[in-house]
């Protein structure tokens, strides 16, 4: 996955992501594609969660999965999550849950609860940073005011780091793939360097839905695991989702 929160020169925030899933889950030698990735694409839907006929939040889901990987609470915040691999992973969390130790939260259910109940960027950030989880994760959160954008790096028990947009330091966007931002990505899976190169080339003055879509369409940011690209504008409550494919030549991850 690749997620990015960026602020333009007027203080408007954009949040976008590629959702990549299905690595090593079967290879279709005829279509040159991952099997599960192919089967997930037709399940991608935009959801408008309503109460009293009014939108509470919107999300992008795979039909049948009720947690949230990508969502927007209009005028308040935007949220995506990226997978964080760790030896102390969710498998242990599930075992603990089965054995009756149930003080941790399932990742997808926490993000759903945050989108349903939190009403501000700060409230969402605190809940995502402080709630004990069953699995490690990266939460990428955007707000509706200048400099409200961060990557929360989570272990199961705690927040390891919160990396925020800082205009003073020249950091007008934060971008996360599937590696801790203070470490180098795996050399075989470096989507961060090309994505940042394209963001830097775009410049803050030109950031928009169109230019972010360009970045997320550049291989290997776009790859054979990419199921969809979502663009979100919190101030207008806008969410657009496009199903993706990556015909050859294209990186398998």
């Amino acid at each position, binding site marked *: 996955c690749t997620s990015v929160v960026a602020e333009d020169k007027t203080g408007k925030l954009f949040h976008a992501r590629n959702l990549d899933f299905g690595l090593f889950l079967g290879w279709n030698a005829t279509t040159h594609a991952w099997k599960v990735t192919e089967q997930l694409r037709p399940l991608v839907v935009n959801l408008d969660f309503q109460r009293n006929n009014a939108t509470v939040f919107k999300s992008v889901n795979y*039909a049948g999965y*009720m947690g949230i990987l990508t969502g927007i609470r209009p005028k308040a915040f935007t949220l995506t999550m990226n997978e964080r691999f760790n030896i102390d992973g969710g498998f242990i969390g*599930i075992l603990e*849950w*089965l054995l009756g130790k149930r003080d941790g939260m*399932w990742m997808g259910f926490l993000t759903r609860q945050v989108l349903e109940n939190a009403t501000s960027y700060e409230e969402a950030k605190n809940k995502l940073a402080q709630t004990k989880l069953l699995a490690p994760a990266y939460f990428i959160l955007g707000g509706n005011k200048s400099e409200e954008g961060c990557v929360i790096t989570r272990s199961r028990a705690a927040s390891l780091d919160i990396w925020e947009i800082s205009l003073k330091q020249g950091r007008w966007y934060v971008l996360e793939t599937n590696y801790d931002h203070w470490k180098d990505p795996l*050399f075989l899976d470096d989507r961060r360097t090309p994505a940042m190169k394209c963001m830097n080339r775009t410049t803050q003055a030109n950031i928009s839905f169109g230019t972010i879509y360009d970045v997320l369409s*550049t291989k290997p940011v776009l790859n054979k695991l990419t199921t969809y690209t979502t663009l979100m504008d919190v101030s207008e409550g806008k969410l657009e*989702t496009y199903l993706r494919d990556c015909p050859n*030549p294209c990186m398998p991850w």
Partner: protein
Amino acid sequence: VGQYVPPYTEECRSGTYPPSGPTFKGQAPWYKINLDISPRQRWHQLISDKKAELNSLIQGIKDLANAFFPSGKLVELVDKYMGPLADTLPFPFGDEIKGIAEAADIPLGEIVLFNVFYELFTV
């Protein structure tokens, strides 16, 4: 050919929006989820529309599991032990999962597995 081998080789794209061409496969459809109705009912319309696709995905995962465990025991274990997990999930998620399984006509344990896929795959 360079795309097959890391590191990155493609130049930054431009002018790809609005989306079109071979990397664009359409827009995702919209559905309303009514939080005012019972958790068991709120996913019904969506799952009815996507029943065939969801069944195809679950079957694909089962085929994969059966390729590693040809006896079919793994799928049996999922059906037997993952289903009851739904009753331990916080409200309203357990009821929502049961509603999805009913609407899709898929064993509850397999829908639970789909919903905890993230936790399983972080190792």
